[in-house]
């Protein structure tokens, strides 16, 4: 995505989705939502994270990042 405003919006929405995943886990820990609701909502927030992150696109990879090796 080249438009910086759209890119920032998508980035913000992606982060919000990720925060929602964590927030939902907190809600189930506190006993505020049912297990089924938590799992469904977590799945939905996860899908949104991937959608917004992919739409946002990525910055060019740094040469050091290209050297990352698989690790246990």
């Amino acid at each position, binding site marked *: 995505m080249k438009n910086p405003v759209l890119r920032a919006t998508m980035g913000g929405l992606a982060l919000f989705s990720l925060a929602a995943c964590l927030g939902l886990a907190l809600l189930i*820990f506190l*006993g505020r939502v049912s297990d089924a609701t938590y799992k469904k909502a977590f799945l939905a927030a996860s899908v949104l994270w991937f959608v917004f992150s*992919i739409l946002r696109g990525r910055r060019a990879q740094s040469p050091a990042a290209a050297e990352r090796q*698989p690790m246990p």
Partner: protein
Amino acid sequence: MPAGWTRLTAAMDKLYEFDREAVTPDKLQSGGKFAGLFAGEHVAATEFVIGAFFVLHGVGARDLLWGLLLGNLLAVLSWTFLCAPIAVRTRLTLYWYLRKIAGPGVTFIYNIANAFLYCILAGAMISVSATAIGLLFGIPVPELGAVLPSSAGWVLISIVLGAAFTTMAILGFEKLSRFAEVASPWIFVVFVAGALAALPRLGVRPDFGNFWEVATTKIWNGIAVAGQEKFGFWHVLSFAWFCNLAMHVGLSDMAIFRYAKKWTYGLYTAFGMYPGHMLAWVASGIMVAAIGREMHPGLMAFEAVGVAGVAGVLLAGWTTANPTLYRAGLALQTITPGWPRWKITLAAGTATTILACFPVFFLKLLDYVAIYGLVLMPIGAIVVAEHWVFPRLKIEQYQAEKRGWAFNWAALAVWLGTLAVAFVLPVHLYFRWLPGWFIALTAYTGLMAARRTK
């Protein structure tokens, strides 16, 4: 050098030609870039298994926390004081620096050993993903201690997943790498959310008031499950330290740190180690306790996060197996000059898929990680001796390069000799690498000093 070797090393050099030259100052990266780079690391499928195994091995809660805190600190310091300084001074990858020190023959053997180890690691990743898919089809996970495939269903899932991962690695390694970057933060969230969601099932109250009591009695209660060795503080500390041994003490991460402005950038590895090798391991420990201490990453994640958890385990395995297959293929390409990229990835993928059918590699992952580091560690000691010790003792550096040796026999003998000694040392597997490192350093220095005397 014999003609065969010349051809082989020429083919090998061609593959790594792009990073033959030292990194120039204009290509150096800022500290922030390194922090970001490491923050995305160390959240792999293996994290689901390692943290869970600490619970199964009966690690106590206090031992776990102190062991992880200090072990990860030692790992960060190893990157900072061993790997980064050499990388910053030479600005070379380990491949090219080792070639100067040990000759192309030893570098070739190192590459092949690395490829073989990568294949086993990728096989373990496929097995972890197989537990997630197996859950959907009701295929049981092999029992702890299993070596051979336990059912036709397990073999079938491993083959299907291995074939899928290999095909995708062939068709679009680059695109998958980009996808892995997107998946990485989410996988980390799956760990944290999964642990949080599992806590009420273990009896932790919403005010967190009884967390420590639950942690010490129901999670890390100090009791190993049947058939598993009891682990304590030193096992955890040592494991956290050597988990990425090949990268820090083994100097493989010179490839990354050659872009660092300062050697102190090694400290940025803490951004990866503490979230990945501490928080994620603690989280997977909580998740395994919540399912009754069964080594089943798919079930752990499903119970804690639902279908998204199953996807998390699958993605964690896939996104880590992908670069592992690529790297294995790259290393193996040196022995198959002329083979196209797809063919060698297919060969590596086939070998990996066969290995994935054997659950031993995932069920003995902790031991495998120890062996992985141990096998490559002597090379790091040899490089440290050549880089730091030789100038002080006035031993000539880089003799293999200057004299055109295909093999620096002293380096090869020290590598193999250290492994032989390490494997018979009468201490636990986890504690063998450290004396082994000193043995390699001393023996290599001694052999090269003796050669100078002659």
